[in-house]
């Protein structure tokens, strides 16, 4: 195994610019790493070897010409969750219904990384259509957690998380609708950021729940996560929900803040996130981490977010409702698979969708259709959107009156065993109780590794900020990780 795959993206950039190694060396090293580990981990659905090596060659030419004026991601290998369309490269969202689908355009976030010179290694495995919390709902087999291969990496961005954890790429993109970046980051000891809703364009992100979805980065260092966010964030005329506010210089802010502590930062600790549902070892580790923040100059404030208990129910009405509408486009007519078992148009739709979708996707489509149907819309969907307003107000109140940042666990447990929760959908849904409220409120949230449990499995600390305060999250995360180092390369051996 080449030692190049242990480097952070920012170390890779330094090495490329100084001529210590070439982009071709770097990409080859990562492709070798994928070859050596993917059969067991199943983190990649597709490795784009030839185009990656071609991009690497172009990156070497750029570096020769432009030196340190080369765009930020020149020659840096990146993996992309298969939920994001990639021009000319198969994109199937880990579903049979899109097998063989070759998008004619790039997702804006992918396009921006490519414009900045990134080398796309391939598409990572995920729960089908981003519906799941363990990566066991993929139509192409589960992903295994590099920390313990009998366990899940989390989901739905399990492939991206396992990829970064195991050194297959320094940075990967994922999507997060109810926790699908933060929860797998927590279970794999990586860093995962869900930006503010609208901070990153959703153009080209296959839609699951359009009022909740966000694209975000995984990395092994806070600086790498900031590097990726820097490039992908910002207004996009193709996404009318993307926010026009200027994108801060995250890397500069991090550099300025380095080593300066967090004096005066008020950290809200919501009691509702530390209830009996949370594993005692997780609770202990997160509390210890919050104490460490106090050691850095933070002021701890006990707060209450009273509607927390209703967030899961709210999400499992709104998410499936929006999904039932978004997934109605998969009808076998314009793209994707078409069933041969039909004698009429109606049968074509039904058999295409039934043959193409997995069980969890069908479950959520059915729930969604039910809660939007005549006679049920007011009691379920409209009610859920009203409770959502209350959840948003809880956070607004806490941030305006009591604290600057909120600290909670990410996941109620560490990585569970493959097959442990698959027979009980509701038990699986509980994996996201700490992350879901953040999506409902559209706020930014980051998971940073903060310790190991007695089985040696990683635990994540979640930091949540007000809308558009990614800088605050990144600065706090950086200070925390400098104070409480975690071996992010433990599985790159």
């Amino acid at each position, binding site marked *: 195994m080449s030692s190049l795959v242990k480097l952070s993206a920012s170390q890779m950039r330094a090495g490329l610019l100084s001529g210590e190694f070439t982009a071709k060396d770097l990409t080859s090293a990562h492709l070798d790493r994928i070859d050596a580990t993917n059969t067991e981990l199943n983190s990649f659905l597709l490795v784009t070897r030839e185009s990656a090596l071609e991009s690497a060659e172009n990156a070497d030419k750029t570096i020769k010409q432009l030196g340190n004026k080369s765009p930020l991601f020149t020659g840096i290998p990146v993996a992309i969750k298969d939920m994001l369309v990639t021009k000319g490269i198969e994109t199937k969202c880990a579903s049979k219904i899109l097998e063989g689908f070759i998008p004619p*355009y790039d997702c804006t976030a992918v396009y921006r990384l490519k414009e900045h010179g990134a080398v796309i290694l391939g598409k990572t495995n995920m729960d089908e259509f981003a519906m799941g919390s363990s990566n066991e709902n993929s139509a192409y087999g589960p992903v295994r957690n590099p920390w313990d291969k009998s366990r899940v990496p989390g989901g739905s961005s399990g492939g991206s998380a396992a990829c970064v954890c195991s050194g297959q790429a320094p940075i990967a993109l994922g999507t997060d609708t109810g926790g699908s970046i933060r929860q797998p980051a927590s279970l794999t000891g990586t860093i995962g950021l869900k930006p503010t809703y609208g901070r990153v364009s959703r153009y080209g992100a296959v839609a699951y729940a359009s009022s909740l979805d966000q694209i975000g980065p995984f990395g092994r260092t806070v600086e790498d996560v900031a590097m990726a966010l820097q490039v992908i964030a910002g207004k996009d005329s193709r996404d009318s929900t993307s926010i026009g506010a200027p994108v801060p210089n995250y890397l500069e802010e991090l550099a300025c803040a380095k080593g300066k502590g967090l004096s005066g930062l008020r950290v809200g600790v919501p009691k509702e996130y530390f209830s009996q549902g949370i594993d005692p070892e997780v609770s202990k580790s997160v509390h210890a981490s919050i104490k460490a923040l106090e050691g850095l100059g933070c002021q701890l404030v006990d707060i209450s977010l009273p509607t927390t208990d209703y967030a899961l129910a709210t999400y499992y009405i709104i998410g499936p409702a929006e999904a039932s509408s978004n997934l109605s486009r998969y009808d076998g007519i314009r793209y994707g698979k*078409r069933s041969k078992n039909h004698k009429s148009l109606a049968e074509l739709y039904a058999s295409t969708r039934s043959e193409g979708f997995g069980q969890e996707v069908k479950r959520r489509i059915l729930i969604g259709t039910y809660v939007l*149907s005549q006679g049920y819309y007011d009691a*379920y969907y409209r009610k*859920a959107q009203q409770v959502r307003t209350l959840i948003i107000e809880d956070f607004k109140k806490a941030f305006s009156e009591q604290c600057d940042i909120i600290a909670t666990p990410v996941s109620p447990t560490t990585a569970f065993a493959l097959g442990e929760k698959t027979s009980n*959908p509701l038990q699986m849904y509980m994996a996201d109780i700490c992350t879901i409220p953040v999506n409902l409120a559209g706020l930014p949230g980051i998971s940073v590794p903060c310790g190991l449990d007695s089985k040696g499995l990683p635990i994540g600390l979640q930091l949540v900020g007000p809308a558009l305060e990614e800088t605050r999250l990144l600065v706090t995360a950086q200070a925390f990780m400098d104070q409480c180092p975690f071996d992010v390369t433990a599985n790159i051996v």
Partner: protein
Amino acid sequence: MSLSIETVRYVAKLSALAITDEEAQRMCKDLGETLDYVAKLAEISTEGVRPTSHVHGATNDFREDILKPSFKTEEVSSIAPDFGPSGFRVPRII
């Protein structure tokens, strides 16, 4: 709450999903449990609360009505399951 098989089949029809008898039985149980859980929202008072329509309260983001090129026909036809001289081919409906 237990959903009846008829309700599950009806919702499946609305969703253009063909489900087997076995799937229908399983869905009765799974959906019933989930709907039981989400019914807890009835506990919380939402009198006078506005439903969220956008998480940050944004309103319409309009653009000028200027024509821009879209995909070329070949880009779209090459990925279609069945594309004929005049467009996407589908089973006869009339």
